[in-house]
């Protein structure tokens, strides 16, 4: 696999950003997009645009078929049993809200417990917090160990006979820890507990096999997966999506509408109320094809090498502290520098064309636990190279110089 060739497929790297070559290390936030995806958006709007599903004219039929093709591609890519287990949402956040809200309507009772982890992104905490407020459920936090991992024992410890849901990230967007979803699901299912996975970082970096993981729900963020913004995917087992109530109401999700009552459509329409992100769904097919053309095993291998290299050079750098030391690390390197606030780091690195993120990365619980207000984060995509990490290290050194650090 030749990364230079792959990188050439991303038009943004042809640009100079403030006179610098772009060293983009913010892919955990959002990935850049390959040309095929952008061309598809453009072509669809220019030559084939129509709304889907509702009209019988030529363009509408063609658009509907394209839209449903993506559903089938996603189904195959994540190895779901049924095409109707794929629901398009506006993002992973909406997907997680959908799950919490509908489980809250039907399954969760007051005093029931939901286990999340200290690693969770706010998107996998706030929706459950809403239920804590409205339904008086309890939220328990499975703790991280000193490496920033959540060993399965720490989850098992929190399980009681009130536990109804375990909602966990596949790959932490701060420590890079990869959680053993398959084992957690086995444990959970042996006790009749539903497993919801926040797959935002799993999507671009890991092999997605729903039959292997066996989780009940899996949320994907398309814009982190080389796809367009404004799109997410919720995978849900058919038995759940069939029995749970709808989330949003509107056109397209109904069967019959009368003044005194309404019946809802079948899957997948039931969860796709209103006009969907048609062009984005259709273009996302190209993101999947792009990933398939590289092969997820190659992606994983490439990123593994990079992360090992990055870990090595950063660890050697005086006063720089890596956050977490997980057994299995995905493409994220978060760090602090003693005496320099992460926002100052990010601003100074940016001056050298190195784009990283600083802040709590929507993981305030984790940062509180670590006793730091914020951290700096370099995160990888398929287009990154060792050279990018060298530049990161150089920029860190420049930054230290400004602050008179050795």
């Amino acid at each position, binding site marked *: 696999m030749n990364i230079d060739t792959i990188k050439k497929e991303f038009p943004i790297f042809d640009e100079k950003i403030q006179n610098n070559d772009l060293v983009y290390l913010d892919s955990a936030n959002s990935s850049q997009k390959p040309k095929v995806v952008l061309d598809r958006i453009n072509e669809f709007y220019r030559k084939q645009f129509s709304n889907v599903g509702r009209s*019988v004219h030529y363009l509408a*039929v063609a658009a509907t*078929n394209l839209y449903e093709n993506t559903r089938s591609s996603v189904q195959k890519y994540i190895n779901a049993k049924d095409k109707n287990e794929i629901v398009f949402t506006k993002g992973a956040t909406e997907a997680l809200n959908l799950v919490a809200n509908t489980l809250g309507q039907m399954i969760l009772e007051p005093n029931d417990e939901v286990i999340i982890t200290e690693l969770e992104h706010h998107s996998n905490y706030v929706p459950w917090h809403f239920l804590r407020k409205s339904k008086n459920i309890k939220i328990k936090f499975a703790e991280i160990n000193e490496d920033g991992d959540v060993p399965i024992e720490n989850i098992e410890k929190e399980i009681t006979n009130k536990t109804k849901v375990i909602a966990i990230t596949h790959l932490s967007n701060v420590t890079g820890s990869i959680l053993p979803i398959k084992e957690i699901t086995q444990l959970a299912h042996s006790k009749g507990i539903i497993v919801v996975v926040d797959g935002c970082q799993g999507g671009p970096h890991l092999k997605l096999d729903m039959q292997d993981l066996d989780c009940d729900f899996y949320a994907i963020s398309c814009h982190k997966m080389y796809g367009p913004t404004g799109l997410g995917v919720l995978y849900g087992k058919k038995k759940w999506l069939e029995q749970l109530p709808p989330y949003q109401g509107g056109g397209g999700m*109904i*069967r*019959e509408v009368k003044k005194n009552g309404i019946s809802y*459509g*079948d899957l997948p*329409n039931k969860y796709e109320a209103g006009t969907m992100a048609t062009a984005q769904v259709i273009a996302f097919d190209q993101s999947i094809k792009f990933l398939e053309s590289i092969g997820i095993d190659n992606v994983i291998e490439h990123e593994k090498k990079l992360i090992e290299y990055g870990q090595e050079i950063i660890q050697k750098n005086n006063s720089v502290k890596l956050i977490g030391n997980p057994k299995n690390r995905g493409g994220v390197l978060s760090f602090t520098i003693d005496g320099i606030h992460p926002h100052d780091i990010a601003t100074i690195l940016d001056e050298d064309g190195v784009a990283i993120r600083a802040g709590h990365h929507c993981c305030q619980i984790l940062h509180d636990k670590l006793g730091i207000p914020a951290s700096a984060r370099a995160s990888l995509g398929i287009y990154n190279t060792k050279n990018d990490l060298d530049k990161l290290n150089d920029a860190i050194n420049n930054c230290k110089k400004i602050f008179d650090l050795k």
Partner: protein
Amino acid sequence: MNLKELYQEIILEHGKNPRNIGKTENFNKDAKGHNPLCGDSVHVYLKLDNKNKVEDVSFEGSGCAISMASASIMTDLVKGKEENEVREIINDFLGMIKINPNLKSKNLNDDEKTKLMCLSGVKQYPMRVKCATLSWHTLISAIDNKNEEINTEKFD
């Protein structure tokens, strides 16, 4: 077959003057079907004799010319056939309207095949395939004694 021919050749004949309309007396099986996209709906009534032969069959419903014609042709064709023959004909028709170029059933004679093939033009209009197949899915449901209403959104 172009669209004009599709509509003219047979659909109009059946669509405007459908056969077997109404509620078969003493029917012993029935099922309802609904196409939420178009609003087409159909109710199929079936009377099987004690040898599982279709003694009588009829339908009530409202919808576009294609769905009404299809129901009308279907009820004509299955009358007098045995249950397993009917199942075979339904499968053959559903296969033809989706992918197969021709009908293969041994339970249909050439005349009957010609009649059915006039619906084959619908293939070119994917949004309308559901109109053509609604009554057929509903007939299976009636034979199988399924109580749930057939909904075209459920099958592809």
